[in-house]
């Protein structure tokens, strides 16, 4: 018994000192770097993009203005990140997956003006992406377009649209395709999308999770994914094991960026935060975008990386669904179309 308490005391001592060290570390961490500090709160797949871009922007700002800028990044699910900002995470800029999430920051957090999307060019989206398919090497199930997904014996991997922003783009891409194919008949589009979700064996909570399920767990015949994620997987992570298939029609995914005015003003970072986002549209910024598998807006950069991004027909969410607010309300809110699909026949 005595030795036991002795051990326990030691354990507690160890824990306490570890805690103390951690607190000490936390306290000293922010004080280490000098100059301007900027926080960019982003979503999951942009990690590599902003690692590259932050270095370039710091160099650019030092060269033109002469100040040191350190940009920190925070990544996570788009919706979760937006909620953190609403609840007080000190983001100077946000670069998220959907306009809906930045709308929420404007509306519920009142941290930036409601017309934020008009303040920067191209709907405030300096880069775009789209929704494509990833299939096994050699495309054994012969998947070329959306209709092939419904072939018997094909199992589909996509994430849960209720929890993943990327999965919402996937859903809307399928819906938009079916709508166009059936001349705008929404009952037929409902049938098509419902049939797709019947063939999904796993609904991961996030887009990265479903990529893991498909690539690492080797479950499913086709992954519906962000183009940048699919390119990253087929070019680097799972080279030689998976192939990219671009459907005949897909959605133009526009992940928007915005300055969080109230926070940036409080930090005295308004000017540099704005410049940070504007530089994304510059020649160098657009080149970094293309290098990191996002589609550049700038034509020169787009031409340079054209071989990466196969040409296909793209529709926007505004054209087909009347914007994010409306799409969210109709399709993804509780008791919305997606919920009806899931409850059908059960």
């Amino acid at each position, binding site marked *: *018994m005595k030795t036991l308490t002795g051990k326990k005391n030691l354990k507690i001592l160890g824990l306490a000192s570890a805690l103390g060290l951690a607190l000490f570390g936390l306290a000293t961490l922010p004080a280490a770097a000098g100059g301007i500090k900027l926080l960019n709160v982003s979503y999951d797949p942009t990690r590599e993009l902003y690692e590259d871009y932050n270095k370039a922007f710091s160099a650019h700002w030092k060269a033109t203005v002469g100040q040191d800028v350190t940009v920190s990044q925070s990544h996570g699910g788009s919706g979760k990140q937006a909620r953190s900002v609403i609840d007080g995470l000190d983001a100077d800029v946000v670069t998220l997956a959907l306009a809906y999430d930045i709308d929420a920051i404007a509306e519920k957090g009142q941290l930036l003006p409601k017309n934020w999307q008009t303040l920067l060019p191209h709907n405030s989206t300096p880069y775009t992406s789209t929704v494509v398919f990833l299939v096994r090497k050699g495309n054994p199930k012969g998947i070329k377009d959306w209709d092939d997904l419904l072939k018997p014996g094909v199992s589909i991997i996509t994430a849960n649209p209720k929890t993943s922003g990327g999965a919402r783009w996937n859903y809307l891409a399928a819906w938009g395709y079916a709508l166009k194919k059936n001349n705008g008949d929404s009952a037929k589009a409902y049938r098509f999308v419902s049939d797709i979700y019947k063939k999904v064996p796993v*609904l991961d909570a996030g887009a990265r999770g479903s990529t*893991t399920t498909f690539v690492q767990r080797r479950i499913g015949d086709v992954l519906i994914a962000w183009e940048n994620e699919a390119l990253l997987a087929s070019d680097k992570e799972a080279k030689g094991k998976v192939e990219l298939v671009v459907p005949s029609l897909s959605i133009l995914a526009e992940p928007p960026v915005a300055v969080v005015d109230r926070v940036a003003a409080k930090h005295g970072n308004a000017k540099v935060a704005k410049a940070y986002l504007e530089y994304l549209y510059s020649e160098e910024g657009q080149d970094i975008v293309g290098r990191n598998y996002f589609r550049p807006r700038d034509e020169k950069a787009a031409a340079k990386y054209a071989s990466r991004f196969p040409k296909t027909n793209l529709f926007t969410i505004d054209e087909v669904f009347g914007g994010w607010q409306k799409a969210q309300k109709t399709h993804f809110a509780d008791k919305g179309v997606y919920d009806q699909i*899931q*409850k059908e026949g059960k």
Partner: protein
Amino acid sequence: MTEALMTAPAAKAPGKPGRPGRKKRHPSVIPGFGLTLGFTVLYLSLVVLIPLSATFIKASHLTWPQLMDIVTDKQVLYAFRLSFLTAAAAALVNGVFGLLVAWVLVRYKFPGRGFLDSMVDLPFALPTAVAGIALCAVYAETGWIGALLEPIGIRVAYTPLGVIVALIFIGLPFVVRTVQPVLEDLDKEVEEAATSLGASRLQIFVKLILPAVMPSLFTGVSLAFARALGEYGSVIFISGNMPLKTEIVPLIIVSKLEQYDYAGATAVACIMLVLSFSLLLAINLLQKWAGGASRAR
């Protein structure tokens, strides 16, 4: 004979500190009751009560029909059923095998015992997401164990069984660590005496050991159960998150938050809290009643 034996170790069971002293109205050995109680109340308020009441306040923005509408939704009801059933199943499995693990660690000396002993704590230390990914990798149909189970028709990953496996993993240390000290305090001489008086091994286990460890086993199992109910990180990777099939309540809460539906999310959370609290209370009462019954014999 048995009466004295049974109550002695039971009184040392964890979770009931300081009670005998107060009952007998001895002046406390350590002064400062007022100060420490004040600190305890303040501390509990800051850490537990205030955040929890914030949950209830948020949920109280809803009217009664709205609340009923949310919690009687088919999808939500399924999730409640899955969460409670899998948590209970995992806690029971842990009750049996956790006791076994604790027994082996306490009663036998063998090389590598210290290593095994610290391994029990791993589920505490590991980030639950890592646990979830690891379990999923092993139990998916392409994983080491999953590939063996697939041919005999058992699918673990992406089924309720997978949820139970994840919950067993995270709940194991609770049972082992609550039962272990009690087993350590059990006198071997008593068992030897029982043997010399002609008791069989089964009799010793059922009449001597089990009653002694029962209170701590109850505590361990209910802790494991409570922990399992709220688990999110490890489960979402292995469950597959299919609506009406493998969706757990925490996932429902997250998907409501994803729509910025704070009231709806907290409503589900409150129902969850009330249900778990009543269940834990019931378990506690049952434990007291069982303890009283065995003492009365």
